[in-house]
């Protein structure tokens, strides 16, 4: 069946060798080419990332030196920092928007949007996405939702400030906090549009992977990146609509007087008419997306890291089938663990037991993945390109952050560390830092594919080492202030003299945060200057096996001039030898997927 489909597509694209003339507008703005859309996602994501990271530096400064005046607060926050002292309102707003931007706009759209678009067609051997037009719409909706989110920073009463989880009633009642007025409305509109773009993107990715694989590209020959991106898209389709329904109900509660989430509220001397709703219902709906979202963020990073590790260790990824199985297991379990965010929400304690069980189960596939990555390094011939460094860094932070999940996922232990800095440390390491490492690794690795030029490796090394030291410097000590019982989202910790001896830890954390944030400028410089002035990239700079490196450096719509390459093997034939101990292709330690089986080569069953 699929063979028939492929032939038609091949025929229709055979004339793509010659290039039809494109104007600036069709090439850069209303582009339906997946490579251009990937770049659009990446650059929008990076810009949003700058905003999100700057915000985190601002509130970290407030936490380290509470109530002190900084000119930069006054310059950036204006009326929200009278005399350069950050106000309580804007502190919560910064925390909220930082979370929203980083989770959704940088790590969901910036990571999976970029690499799904770039890699799916190139690595499976397709001319483009199943629907280029839908793909273009998806990006434009993403840009629109980004603009609305950024725009919400400038409304009179401030942006949404109820935390990125926007639990009602706080997020529903402008009387309870200023940010729940216009700011929250814009937040909800922005997220509704974001969900629409995410669904369009995900459906497109799923259809493309299922239908447009080139001849010979069976599911078991797919690179792990594609497996991860494919499964990520499925999780997105399953869970994002639930957030949309939660957002719609919240909009109705806010604007049309319904009571889905509100009941028995007395505020500012008045009893509100809302009756019979439950905030716990919102928590369920939110985390039904919110937890899978964590895996939407981390799975693409896992796929990217698996691919980069195999390439740079010059070894096949260890346990390909186990890696695929654990991606599937993680994806399945991710949809039934959301309750571990709600152990002390007031839901039935029996549910807590069930969610503890499923949550700790998810540690098993995660552990298998970590062990397999480590084994992939064993007896390798490791090429330390910047992408490889970030991949190793990913495994390190993923383990460090993942292990504390065993504490948080245990309903008993969660009682006392819930909503403390221990949680912040955990999820920043395991999904924040790890996913960003995955993103950065991907950018360093596929930059030559995207722009035909190389990024500067020495700047990459500086970037990696300072980031790596800084990230641990920020988040490792944070576990300890969490164990001391310090709650998150506190504007200052000085109201409890008991916390006074944590102040110096907070200063250490903030200093590391400032250093880490600053060094990202090195990356940005490297990225943007290499686009224009980087060294010309060879066709296959990392000696990689996957199909994208068989396409010419110059971009052309349709990816390959002439016929699409056929696939004869899996993508991990690195350092494969014949029985006589010689490489399969003499003198070359890799065999790209489009090379047919060689004489005397044994075909392995993976």
């Amino acid at each position, binding site marked *: 069946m699929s063979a028939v489909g492929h032939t038609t597509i091949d025929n229709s694209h055979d004339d793509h060798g010659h290039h039809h003339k494109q104007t600036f507008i069709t090439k850069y703005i209303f582009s339906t080419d997946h490579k251009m859309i990937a770049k659009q996602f990446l650059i929008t994501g990076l810009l949003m990332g700058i905003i999100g990271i700057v915000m985190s530096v601002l509130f970290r400064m407030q936490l380290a030196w509470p109530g002190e005046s900084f000119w930069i607060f006054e310059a950036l926050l204006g009326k929200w920092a009278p005399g350069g002292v950050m106000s309580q309102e804007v502190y919560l707003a910064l925390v909220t928007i930082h979370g929203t931007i980083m989770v959704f706009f940088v790590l969901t759209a910036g990571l999976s949007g970029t690499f799904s678009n770039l890699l799916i067609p190139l690595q499976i051997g397709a001319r483009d996405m199943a629907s280029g037009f839908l793909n273009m719409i998806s990006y434009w909706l993403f840009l629109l939702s980004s603009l609305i989110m950024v725009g919400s920073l400038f409304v009179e009463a401030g942006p949404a400030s109820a*935390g990125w989880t926007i639990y*009602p*009633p*706080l997020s529903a*009642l402008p009387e*309870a906090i200023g940010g729940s007025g216009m700011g929250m409305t814009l937040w909800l509109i922005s997220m509704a549009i974001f969900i629409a773009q995410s669904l369009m993107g995900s459906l497109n990715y799923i259809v493309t992977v299922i239908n447009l694989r080139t001849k010979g590209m069976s599911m078991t020959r797919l690179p792990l990146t594609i497996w991860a991106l494919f499964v990520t898209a499925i999780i997105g389709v399953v869970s994002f609509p639930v957030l949309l329904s939660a957002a719609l109900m919240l909009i109705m509660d806010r604007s049309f007087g319904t009571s889905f989430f*509100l009941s*028995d*509220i*007395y*505020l500012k001397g008045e009893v509100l008419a809302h009756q019979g*709703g*439950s*905030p*716990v219902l919102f928590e369920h709906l939110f985390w039904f997306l919110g937890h899978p979202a964590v895996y939407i963020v981390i799975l693409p990073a896992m796929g990217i890291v698996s691919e980069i590790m195999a390439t740079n*260790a010059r070894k096949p990824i260890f346990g390909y089938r186990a890696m695929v199985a654990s991606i599937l297991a993680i994806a399945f379990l991710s949809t039934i663990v959301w309750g571990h965010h709600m152990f*002390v929400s*007031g839901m039935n*304690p029996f549910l807590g*037991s069930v969610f*503890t069980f499923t949550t700790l189960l998810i540690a*098993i596939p995660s552990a*298998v993945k970590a*062990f397999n990555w*480590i*084994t992939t*390094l064993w*007896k*390798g*011939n*490791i090429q330390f390109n910047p992408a*490889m460094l970030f991949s190793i860094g990913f495994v*390190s932070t993923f*383990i460090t952050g993942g292990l504390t999940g*065993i*504490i948080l996922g*245990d309903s*008993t*232990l969660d009682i*006392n560390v819930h*909503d403390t800095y221990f949680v912040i440390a955990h999820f920043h390491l395991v999904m924040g830092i790890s996913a960003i490492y995955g993103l950065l690794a991907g950018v360093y690795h596929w930059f030559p594919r995207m722009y035909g030029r190389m990024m500067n*490796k020495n700047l990459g090394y500086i970037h990696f*080492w300072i980031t790596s030291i800084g990230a641990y410097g920020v988040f490792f000590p944070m576990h*300890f202030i969490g164990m*001391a*019982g310090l*709650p998150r*989202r*506190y*504007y200052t910790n000085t109201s409890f*003299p*008991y916390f*006074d001896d*944590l102040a110096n830890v907070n200063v250490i954390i903030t200093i590391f945060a400032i250093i880490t944030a600053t060094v990202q400028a090195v990356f940005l410089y490297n990225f943007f200057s290499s686009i224009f002035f980087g060294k010309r990239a*060879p066709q296959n*700079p990392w000696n990689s096996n996957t199909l994208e490196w068989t396409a010419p450096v110059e971009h052309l719509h349709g990816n390959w001039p002439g016929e699409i390459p056929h696939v004869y093997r899996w993508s991990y034939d690195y*350092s494969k030898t014949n029985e006589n101990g010689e490489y399969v292709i003499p003198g070359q*330690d890799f065999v790209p997927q489009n090379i047919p089986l060689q004489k005397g080569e044994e075909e*392995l069953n*993976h």
Partner: protein
Amino acid sequence: MTVFLIIIVIALFGITVWQLKKIYELSRTTSAIDTTQVANDGDNKRQGNYMLAFGIGFYLFMFYCFWEFTDRALPAASSEHGAEFDTLLLVSMAVIMFVQIITQGLLHYFAFKYQGKKGRRALFFADNDKLEFIWTIIPVIVLAGLIIYGLFTWSSIMNIDEEEGNPIVIEIYAKQFSWEARYAGMDNTLGKSNVRFIEGINTVGVDVSDPYALDDKITSELHLPVNRPVIFKFRSQDVLHSAYFPHFRAQMNVVPGMVTQFAFTPTVTTEEIRETEYMRDKLARIKDLRKARSDAGEELADYEEFDYYLLCNKICGVAHYNMQMKIVVETEAEFNAWLGEQTEFGEVIKKQQENNPAGGEQESEDLAQVQN
């Protein structure tokens, strides 16, 4: 107008750069392909060595954090179930630190050991069912142990026995940004309540017509008798809050529209915990810090003695960071004496009606309407 001019200038500058770039591109040989930005043997050696150094440095840093920051962790639990909690935490910590040390060590050591060299041959090692089985089954066993241990503890904490040990029932009432406590009084039954009863002095919305409510006592400090189970019922007036008792290893969200509950038995009185070595050291440290700060000219309130506290741990508005209530754990006799001094709700209402009879009538009419 100036903004407009600035935008034009920036746009023109952008075009200039773009054009310059085009000229620059045209002027150089575009076919020059360059592999200098791919890691070579020198890079591999350096970065591999850095990996080892980083691994060692990371060990030292972890060790330093444990050494330096452990004294900041919470003291031993002051509640009955808290002791179990502490053991479970210790066991889990030991397990995860063991895994952390081994895996991080292997990761960084392998990165160092197998750094790339020209001529080195990587091992084509794609699969090994036995190895994979081993490292699937080990986490399964360890996690099964932790899950079972955790679940037993969890059900013993969350199963609230309303009979055993003569428990005392206390309502914790949350609003932006303060806490109140309501004691059930002699009948140990809380009177009915709803935000719609909030009126004047009746700030927590107790139903005046409910006979059980009349002996309730509403306080702004939480006193608990030692070694007697306490059942807390939580109610919120406005938004979500979370009642967090870190020293008792207890936490429960406070949800408007429903009553949530948690129970624990305090085992260490305020007097006793002040005398522990942990707390004396901690207080001395904090006093030193505060003295240094006030010497530097900061105005600080005195912090002479440790008190347990209840704090809000769910974002609830701008003053979320300062929503606290003092907790005093004392002997049964002290507790009874203190409770005896508190005024009963019925008396409070009566006094208000005496002072303001008209208002009182008005109030009861309103209430009658609510009940209808």
